[in-house]
């Protein structure tokens, strides 16, 4: 059943294409022989029905939100309304070209403009760009703005600070932008350790990159003090919006002192994850940074939507055209559908579900940090490890029960970390079922650990030999 499509053969005449009106020889006269392909590309050769069966059967080997509970921490695997897919696919939007005269694309421009405005309101920022294609792309945008700001002010800055619990894209982006990375410790309560921050901060610090709630699922109570400290050396505070799902309508990064934010539309704002992308990572800034945003932004002039004509201080372009429009329109429609009350309910139930699960699981797993969590929490399989079963094994065993594994081994500062994010769209009944399954796995750990160590048993493949994959890379099919 895992035959490659290259290994199947049936008739393929590409009959869905119209016929040529001229002979091949006549057409080829338009091109110099030296520019032509000499050997054909070994693409698959199968009938339409076989294409259907192949990809349908592949899809059935995936776990997905549509089919399973998917409590993957930091990823916000919520239900994304299907009407959004239909809206994005409508001809009026999917069949509009970015180089059409703005007059002929007022609908698309309106959506971009209004999304910029809605996101500004929700996050408490002045203006947004929708260009970045993903969270990491947003980080790149943000740090380029940081650089432009300090150059504009003729200040030399060399360092970017991040908490030791940060996502890997933070240091990678800082390095890409030429900054030295300085890590700040997490204290015993799971917050940025102010003493360490004070000890390490100096005039060279360009920016502090932070998620709030943190990757431990905790609200940074000292956020206003953190922002004050960073601002005192004319550093900027950058908000990594990975965890925005906890805050909608309850508090805003802009009010906490963040100068730049990126929002992952594919987490909080209902863009489906699509097996790994596309997402969208819009960036918002405070007033004094607006002029550095990527060009062009969409503006409103009277009743007309237009592209900004001049942006002399802009950091430039991050990609072609105006952003992942097909993702942005989903978020636009989602925000319009939910309104204020709907958005408030999102975070309320995300936080309620997470705290409920945490309460139910605290006897089973060690919870390294006390207190109520926000939309997710981190637990540790340390006790289970003492019995010879690691977080990885539990994650694999969960698959046998038809539940996707939580995020494991992140954040790096928690031993045997399991990060659980139930999201607001799951019901209490689903959460109770999850608890029951973990209790059952716990019994197995006590009585029959081998069963957990050998898991998964019911997936299309059992544990994968990753060492062989990396030692002997086989990264493509080669025709025999």
């Amino acid at each position, binding site marked *: 059943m*895992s035959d490659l499509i290259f290994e199947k053969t049936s008739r*393929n005449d*590409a009959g*869905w*294409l119209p016929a040529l009106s001229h002979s091949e020889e006549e057409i080829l006269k338009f*091109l110099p022989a*030296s520019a032509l392909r000499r050997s054909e590309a*070994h693409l698959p050769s199968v009938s*339409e029905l076989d*294409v259907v069966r192949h*990809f349908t059967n592949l899809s*059935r080997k*995936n776990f997905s939100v549509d089919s399973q509970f998917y409590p993957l921490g930091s990823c916000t695997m919520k239900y*994304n309304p299907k009407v959004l897919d239909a809206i994005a696919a409508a001809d*009026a939007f999917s*069949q*509009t070209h970015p180089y059409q*005269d703005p007059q002929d694309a007022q609908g698309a421009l309106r959506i971009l403009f209004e999304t910029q405005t809605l996101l500004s*309101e929700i996050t408490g920022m002045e203006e947004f760009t929708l260009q970045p*294609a993903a969270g990491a*792309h947003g980080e*790149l945008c943000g740090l380029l703005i940081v650089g432009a700001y300090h150059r504009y002010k003729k200040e030399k800055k060399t360092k970017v600070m991040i908490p030791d619990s940060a996502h*890997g*894209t933070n*240091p*990678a982006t800082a*390095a890409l932008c*030429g900054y030295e990375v300085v890590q700040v410790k997490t204290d015993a309560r799971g917050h940025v350790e102010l003493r360490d921050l004070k000890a390490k901060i100096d005039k060279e610090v360009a920016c502090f990159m932070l998620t709030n709630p943190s990757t431990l699922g905790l609200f940074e109570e000292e956020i*206003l003090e953190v922002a004050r400290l960073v601002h005192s050396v004319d550093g900027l505070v950058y908000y990594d919006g990975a965890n925005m799902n906890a805050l909608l*309508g309850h*508090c805003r990064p802009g009010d906490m002192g963040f100068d730049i934010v990126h929002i992952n539309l594919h987490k909080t704002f209902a863009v489906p994850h*699509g*097996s*790994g992308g*596309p997402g969208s990572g819009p960036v918002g800034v405070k007033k004094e940074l607006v002029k550095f945003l990527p060009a062009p932004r969409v503006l409103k002039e009277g009743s007309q939507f237009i592209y900004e004509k001049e942006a002399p201080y802009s950091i*430039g372009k991050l*990609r*072609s*055209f105006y*952003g*992942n429009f*097909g993702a942005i329109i989903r978020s636009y429609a989602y925000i319009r*559908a*939910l309104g*204020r009350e*709907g958005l*408030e*309910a999102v975070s309320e*139930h995300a936080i*309620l*579900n997470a705290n409920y699960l945490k309460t139910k699981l605290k006897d089973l797993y060690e919870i390294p940090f006390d207190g*109520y969590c926000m939309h997710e929490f981190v637990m540790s399989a340390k006790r289970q490890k003492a019995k010879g079963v690691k977080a990885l094994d539990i994650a694999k065993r969960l698959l046998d029960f038809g539940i996707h594994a939580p995020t494991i081994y992140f954040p790096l500062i928690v031993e045997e970390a399991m990060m659980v994010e139930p999201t607001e769209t799951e019901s*209490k009944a*689903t959460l109770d079922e999850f608890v029951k399954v973990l209790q059952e796995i716990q019994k197995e750990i006590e009585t029959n650990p081998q069963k957990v160590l050998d898991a998964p048993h019911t*997936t299309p493949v059992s544990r994968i030999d990753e060492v062989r*994959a*990396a030692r002997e890379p*086989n*990264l*493509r099919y080669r025709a025999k």
Partner: protein
Amino acid sequence: MHYISNTEEDKRQMLEAIGVASFDALIAKIPKKLRDFKLRLPEGLSELELVRELDAIGAANKNLQDYASYLGGGVYDHYVPALVNHLAHRGEFITSYTPYQGEASQGTLQFIYEYQSMICELTGMDYSNASMYDGASGLAEAALLALRSTGKKKVILPRTVHPEYRAVVKTYLSCLDAEIVEPPFVDGAVDLAALKRALTADTAAVVVQQPNFFGVLEEAREIARLTHEAGALFIASVNPISLGILEPPGDYGADIAVGEGQPLGNPISFGGPHFGFFTVKEPFLRKLPGRICGMTVDKVGRRAFVLTLQAREQHIRREKATSNICTNHSLCALKGAIYLSLLGKKGLRKLALLNVEKAHEAYEKLRRLDGVSEFSKKPFFNEFTLQLKKNPASLKENLAANRIVGPLALSGFYTGMDGRYLFAVTEKRTTQEAERLAQAIQKAKAL
């Protein structure tokens, strides 16, 4: 409207289990002054109201189902068979995450492996990653790879490369110690003499777009030879459909080949999301940015797929990663893989020939019009540039009256290009539409 599954009774029981009286107790740690606001947003809508509202907004767009498009410049109006969306939009693809849990993601992993294989076949390159955001950011990552890999500082980026792509490369390189040189063009193609002058020992890479932004075929093989002679890497940015008939970059000496994948089964969608493909020759495998999928076996020896060579990536190597990229445009790449599977070997060639045929048919019709003059004598694939009158009066109105969108005015991208227009002609365009286009231009006194 909302999509919450908990009932009020559920909520009551959950708060009780947690041991708090109200939801507010759970967020009491958020400083009070941060909570003192109400979002000012439009009222929520039911699904029916939402659909009506979006329909009304969409009506202000001229869409390409109603208009014949001669617009290109990076994204193209190709026909997408119904099957592509039918398969790609299955919930198991659209609502799954990055395949980090391999055993629960064999579907995604296998299609990525097949995608990588197809892209390698198409480009004639050794290895492909699982895809990038788009063609432009992919080109910027290629330039970064070349700079890192050679330790040199100069990137040669001819003015025949898409202006937006050049802008993106400049942004990505803006905080590095790198120099970008942009040789001019002659007869619509890179000025080879200027290119040679720019090629010095400190050159990390030369970029060529094939066909270039004007639609013209560059002398890629010759440029590759010059580039390698100077000890630099050769980066090709290619149109994937053209590779059904044109020599693939792997054959003419590209070290890195990238491009925009939109023509492969993805809707135009106002410019995104699409996918960038990214390929390299063997020596650069470990320097690839982004995700890569490999074939291996499971515990009992069955074929299995998994993300591999991950130690290059940001989630492991952090500040020493080959790129900060995390996501790939999986779903768009899946559409590409389904589209290429449907095309097959024969279809790919036929599609490329159709594009050549239709584009040259339109070119002949337009070129015959009085006052239209050519921009370049060089061969082209499915896009070409023509010189009309400067600032043609009423061109837009006449095109609209003939239900045509495009061509693209180059004056928006280059100074001194008034009256030059870029026409893209795919397999979708008919002889009748080409006639309507010619009439519209004639009538607009654009000549």
